């Protein structure tokens, strides 16, 4: 610790701090633009110049390290003169038309100009004009004359997003922030640049000119999308969500959110919102009153239970549903005499069920990632599945941690990887087994039974070595590992690797409530049907909560067939979509996350409850209320809740920060090597902007490059073997269904595989996400 003095106040600050850090500690404000605590120091705006005793010139507070006995004056004449001088320079070329600027009212330059600017300008020449740029549907670069060249956006790209999409071209006052000629900004984290921009140069394309910042009320919420549980500030005007911003939480999302979280709100007011209950009458869906709809559902469900037995009913929730909804769903299903309830709709292999010691989770706190020495991620489209989780790993790799990835495509996670193995889906377990075997050898343990025939490759060896070195290690399984037909095998192998290396085992989890679903026990009974089986063995009645089966299930073909034959399909959903009109018998309008209170349990087990930020649209009602009333109408016991908090408190102890019962231990899965399956294999990613019903309906996100319609991507030699030309139309077939797609050469796809995305209407007729597939010329 060093003793220093800031504005006459003595302070003790850690050695290595800058004057800016020290000022923050003692609560002295130093004006700044380019400085940002999460970005590298540029010291280019010069706004933070302060006086330092014995220094002949004012020093930039952001870049000057403190020394013992240093005396800093942040508001002395020298400091203020320097700050005012810089402010004058910043303003000479900046348009002074705040009233028509979208940033007005939330602009750092505007705020500081009040304190350091002059009421009249000494600059009387023409101002610089910088041409606007079109960089995509999310970030507006329409007003680049407002840019003050702080390069926060540039540094964000380089350092946080991992890709330098913006740079400063040209010299002198002609310097301009722009993309590489003609390119767009496609990072999944790009929206953060809007927050970082201290002026109105980068603004939100969907939001701009729709409201002024002072008209908006700020309400707290939690992201319903990925498993990180990013904290949100939702800005509301007149019962309408206008904008979503990050709410800083260092332990969870730091100060970032992904574009999915930032822009999905557009889907909230989509024209597809279901605003009134609907019942199929004479083959067509008709709008009815709530009491009619609930009576109808109640009678129909009871009828099925009576005639075919409770097991003829199955219920499927979603990992995007709240804890309360999932709890009531399973309670209701069990009340009807069925144990067939699940929320893991994209899972294929459930053989680990009954062998788990507790609720699967990340295995460590998000804030502990930065302290890891080595991490191995198995089966994940990291960047697109978990943008902010990937960001944490990116920072880890930058610092010194060794991050490795075993997955089914060679997509660049923009992380400086220590080792990367890309294998066909059916070889994923074998690839992990290679690392397990190498680690066993390194630890002088006998080769785990079942893996004797394996010879680890050099990369497996390198990954094993990195996991055996250092103090803190983690092995995490991604979405692909959970969706894989080898999920249990992968889980067991990863557990063995964790045991061998003394590392921690975890699951990233595919959605906001992947942990919460387990906590709510929205899981099938031992003898009942899971999310895959309930469609494999068609039922008479289905209750679907927040799922769109043709897009959200592992095998949509099978799901749709089962739903079409069922006597009753009840959907609790915020949206009415075309496909549902074919098979749904009842549509009950439920509220999306902004219109209901609820709880998400994120991947680290953190309980995050939130309130609705606006009133439900039309006659939509919070899901928990709908299920509660349905429970009442059905005459089930224990459905007399007064609030969602009451529901929650039944599951998790009141005021607990984390849920209990977390464990990734698995027992009773024997290792076995899988033989290569013949034929082509499908690799189905869930594209980032098709992943859930809400994000599918965000217009802006649907215009991004990540939302392009799926193609059939194969590597060049596979294409050649099949005699298919790049760019030609192909017919891909699985079971009874087929899709007509364009063939694309893609070297990131392993041999003998076809990458065909799931969760899109064009591929909804296909079957298993990682099953065999046929490709032929159309």
């Amino acid at each position: 610790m060093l003793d220093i003095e800031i504005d006459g106040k003595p302070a003790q600050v850690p050695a290595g701090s800058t004057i800016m850090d020290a000022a923050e500690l003692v609560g002295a404000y130093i004006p700044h633009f380019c400085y940002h605590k999460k970005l590298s120091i540029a010291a280019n705006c010069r706004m933070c110049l302060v006086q330092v005793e014995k220094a002949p010139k004012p020093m930039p507070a952001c870049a000057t390290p403190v020394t013992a006995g240093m005396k800093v004056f942040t508001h002395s004449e020298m400091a203020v003169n320097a700050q005012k001088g810089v402010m004058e320079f910043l303003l000479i070329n900046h348009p002074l038309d705040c009233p028509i600027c979208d940033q007005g009212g939330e602009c750092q330059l505007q705020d500081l100009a009040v304190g350091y600017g002059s009421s009249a300008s000494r600059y009387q020449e023409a101002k610089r004009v910088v041409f606007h740029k079109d960089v995509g549907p999310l970030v507006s670069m329409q007003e680049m004359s407002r840019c003050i060249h702080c390069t926060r956006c540039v540094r964000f790209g380089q350092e946080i997003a991992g890709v330098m999409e913006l740079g400063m071209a040209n010299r002198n006052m002609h310097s301009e922030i722009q993309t590489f000629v003609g390119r767009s900004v496609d990072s999944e984290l790009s929206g953060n640049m809007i927050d970082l921009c201290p002026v109105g140069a980068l603004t939100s394309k969907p939001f701009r000119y729709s409201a002024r910042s002072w008209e908006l009320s700020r309400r707290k919420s939690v992201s319903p999308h990925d498993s990180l549980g990013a904290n949100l500030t939702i800005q509301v005007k007149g019962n309408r969500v206008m904008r979503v911003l990050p709410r800083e939480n260092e332990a969870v999302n730091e100060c970032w959110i992904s574009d999915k979280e930032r822009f999905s709100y557009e889907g909230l007011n989509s024209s597809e919102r279901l605003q009134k209950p609907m019942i199929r009458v004479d083959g067509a869906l008709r709008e009815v009153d709530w009491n009619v709809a609930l009576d109808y559902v109640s009678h129909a469900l009871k009828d099925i239970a009576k005639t075919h037995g409770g097991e003829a009913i199955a219920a499927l929730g979603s990992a995007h549903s709240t804890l309360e909804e999932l709890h009531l769903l399973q309670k209701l299903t069990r009340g009807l005499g069925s144990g067939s309830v699940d929320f893991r709709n994209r899972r294929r292999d459930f053989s680990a069920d009954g062998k788990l010691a507790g609720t699967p989770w990340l295995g460590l706190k998000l804030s502990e990632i930065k302290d890891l020495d080595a991490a191995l991620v198995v089966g994940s489209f990291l960047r697109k599945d978990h943008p902010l989780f990937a960001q944490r790993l990116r920072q880890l790799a930058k610092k010194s941690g060794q991050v490795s990835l075993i997955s089914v495509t060679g997509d660049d996670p923009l992380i400086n990887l220590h080792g990367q193995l890309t294998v066909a889906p059916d070889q994923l377990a074998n690839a992990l087994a290679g690392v397990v075997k190498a680690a066993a050898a390194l630890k002088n343990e006998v080769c785990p039974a079942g893996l004797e025939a394996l010879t680890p490759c050099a990369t497996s060896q390198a990954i094993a070595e990195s996991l055996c070195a250092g103090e803190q290690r983690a092995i995490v399984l991604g979405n692909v590992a959970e969706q894989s037909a080898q999920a249990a095998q992968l889980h067991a192998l990863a557990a063995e690797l964790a045991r061998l290396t003394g590392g921690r085992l975890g699951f990233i989890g595919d959605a906001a409530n992947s942990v919460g679903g387990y906590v709510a026990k929205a899981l099938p009974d031992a003898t009942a049907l899971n999310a895959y089986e309930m469609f494999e063995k068609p039922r008479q009645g289905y209750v679907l909560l927040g799922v769109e089966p043709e897009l959200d299930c592992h095998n949509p073909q099978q799901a749709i067939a089962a739903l079409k034959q069922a006597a009753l399909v009840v959907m609790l959903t915020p949206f009415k979509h075309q496909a549902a009109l074919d098979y749904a018998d009842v549509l009950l309008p439920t509220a999306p996350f902004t219109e209901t209170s609820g709880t998400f349990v994120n991947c680290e087990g953190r309980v995050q409850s939130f309130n609705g930020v606006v009133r439900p649209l039309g006659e939509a009602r919070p899901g928990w209320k709908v299920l509660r009333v349905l429970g009442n109408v059905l005459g089930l016991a224990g459905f007399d809740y007064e609030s969602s908090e009451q529901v929650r408190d039944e599951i998790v102890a009141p005021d607990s920060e984390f849920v209990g019962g977390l464990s990734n231990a698995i027992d009773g899965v024997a290792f076995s090597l899988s033989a290569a399956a013949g034929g082509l294999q499908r690799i189905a990613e869930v594209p980032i902007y098709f992943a859930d019903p809400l994000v599918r309906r965000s217009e802006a996100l649907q215009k991004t490059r990540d939302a392009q319609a799926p193609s059939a991507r194969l590597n060049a030699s596979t294409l050649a073997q099949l005699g298919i030309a790049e760019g030609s139309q192909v017919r891909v077939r699985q079971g009874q269904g087929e899709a007509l797609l364009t063939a694309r050469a893609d070297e990131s796809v392993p041999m003998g595989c076809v990458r065909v995305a799931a969760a899109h209407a064009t591929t909804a007729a296909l079957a298993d996400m990682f099953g065999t597939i046929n490709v032929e010329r159309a």
Partner: protein
Amino acid sequence: MAILGALNPMLTVGLDGDKAWHLADYVKRGGYTALNKVLAGEKMTQDDVIGVVKKSVLRGRGGAGFPTGLKWSFMPRAFPGDKYVVCNSDEGEPGTFKDRDILLFNPHAVIEGMIIAGYAMGAARGYNYIHGEVWEVYLRFEEALAEARAAGFLGKNIVGSGFDFELFAHHGFGAYICGEETALLESIEGKKGQPRFKPPFPASYGLYGKPTTINNTETFAAVPLIINGGADAYLEAGKANNGGTKLFSVSGHVNKPGNYEIPLGTPFSTLLEMAGGMRGGRALKACIPGGSSSPVLPGSIMMDCTMDYDSISKAGSMLGSGAVIVMDETTCMVRALERLSFFYYEESCGQCTPCREGTNWLYKIVHRIEQGQGRADDLDLLGSITTNIMGRTICALGDAASMPVQSFVKHFRDEFAYHIEHKKCLVPPDVQRAGSGFFKATV
């Protein structure tokens, strides 16, 4: 031969004929003996070499005049891993054209100096960053490097000493800012040439983040002379605290503009005489003694100066890179400043606010004064803007742009005031035209 004259020369001795730059010729003149002396003959220690350079009071020839030996002693020699020696041949300062001649006519002196520097600072790799607008110089230096490599002066185990050193030429594309040492490092690294914030200084965090020392071409070229002749002889060749001789690039209104090598401490009048005196016998109005960023001095003050760091500094300017820009009585000082201000505005890298915005503003004001649209308070405004730029920027370009403005206005305020008041030059246009050398005076 582009060196037009010399007084007790050291660096340009024997540079006759077209072949003088070749290795054979250089060796014949005593080249690479210093290297042999350091590495083989006397087996000098690193401290010995740095000590000799310190004692010679060799001061940086690039502009700042920082004592070279002292700079070398800042290198953390014990630092494990790569260290670099970089030669700054990015000669972009208006008026300066000495390094290109050194590289064209005596490249091996620079190579030898860099090898010795590399040895003294424990660096195994060097780069010579050559200005992008003098392409033939870059090609020449590459040829010289090939000769040195073939002769075993570069590479592994140089002259059997066990010391390895590799040297590479790297050319820029002509941006002035790349002459700033940290921008130069960024440029070598393949990034946009923008200065880094200091500290950390290159000695601790330089090229690729490794300890690096950067010296000017002429500085490196002087090192073999010091090793061979001894520190005292070099110091005595100049004057106290200003060791050795220096190349001066004389341009402007003189009869024989060009490079001249003279001992430091030589009177300005002698240099002016060597350069053939004032063109047309006109009176000396002003002189910029050290390249465009050094403050201008009126002729009368200049004539009392000797050409060394201390004398020029005492007179209120800087010896800088030794670019002597001579202006006679036909010069309009407003127009001269307008051109300089345009240069600094154009070459500002745009990174930090005061320089990016301020240099352009300065130019716009000087420009409007020159165009007869100046305002009464413009001179005060110029003063205020330069105060707001100086000392508040990341690198010295802000200061470099401000000093000419301040000194021109200070020494020739009347001329600027006349311009503003009468909306025309104090020096009649036809006189200016005549002074340019291309037109005849009509009066």
